């Protein structure tokens, strides 16, 4: 098994000095499941969760320096999957209703900032087509943004790392702002 999580974590440290300060030079201890690095890009569920969430540290390794990061990996994967899916939803909205682009372009750009901060370079989920009714299409994205806000909130509360908790809570706040902004469309 290759070890993408390491470079991912390095990227995380490199790109998010503000967001996630305090990354240490801890050695990579336990190998981690590649399934936690991203969700199935074909998933169409509103709140994808990692398929093999296994936050348990290696046997007997509860005090290893990597425990905290490993336990939080599924939370990072959740946030990545949520952002990729929403980015796809914005694309679908703009394809169907081009006049929404002006309002939604900066919001979609935020999602890419979230992904960069989370150390992910994945591709937005291939979206389902947006509704023909403009109002319903926008409302679907509002609902998805609200769901993402709620999910990131819960993950922030659950995070072992305080810095990750702050990042996830801030991302939750960003999603909540998006929902408000979209409602004015």
């Amino acid at each position, binding site marked *: 098994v290759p070890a993408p999580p390491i470079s991912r974590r390095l990227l995380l440290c490199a790109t998010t000095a503000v*967001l996630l300060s305090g990354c240490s030079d801890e050695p990579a201890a336990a190998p981690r499941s590649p399934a936690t690095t991203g969700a199935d890009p074909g998933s169409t569920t509103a709140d994808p969760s990692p398929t093999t969430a296994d936050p348990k540290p290696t046997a007997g390794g509860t005090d290893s320096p990597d425990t905290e990061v490993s336990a939080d990996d599924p939370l990072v994967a959740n946030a990545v999957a949520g952002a990729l899916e929403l980015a796809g939803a914005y694309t679908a909205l703009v394809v169907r209703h081009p006049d929404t682009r002006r309002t939604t372009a900066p919001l979609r750009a*935020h999602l890419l900032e979230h992904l960069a901060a989370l150390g992910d370079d994945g591709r937005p989920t291939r979206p389902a087509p947006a509704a023909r009714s403009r109002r319903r299409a926008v409302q679907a994205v509002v609902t998805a943004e609200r769901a993402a806000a709620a999910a990131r909130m819960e993950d922030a*509360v659950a995070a072992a790392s*305080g810095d990750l908790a*702050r990042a996830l*809570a*801030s991302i939750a*706040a*960003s999603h909540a*702002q998006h929902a408000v902004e979209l409602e004015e469309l």
Partner: protein
Amino acid sequence: VTAIAALQAALAGEHAAIYGYSVIGGRFDADSGVVRLAIEAHSEHRAVRDALVEALLGREESPVPTEPGYELPAPVDGAAAARALGRLIEDRCGVLHAALVATAEGVERRLAAQALVDSAVRAVRWGAAPSAFPGVGAT
């Protein structure tokens, strides 16, 4: 920063926010949009303040008291100034709550995370542009 220091800082911010909104609320016609928003924000910040006080008392800490007065950055002499003050209040509270999220756990962290989200939403209602990282990014 300890969780207690972050709780106290957030509480001090809430005291200031409540003051700021009481100023806005007292200067405009009661049925104006600005006052409606200010009254709602005032009441929400009071609820956060009470929860922070409760958290500190639960830790057997003395909650930081409200200041006798606060210096506003600019006179609140119109709706635009009121909106600017609202954005400033929510920005500052967001930063304080984000710091508390990082240091607190459990119910205290949940309180802070919810307060961060709510401040971010109110900032947009006051006319702020949405941000990628409310309370954390360069504000």
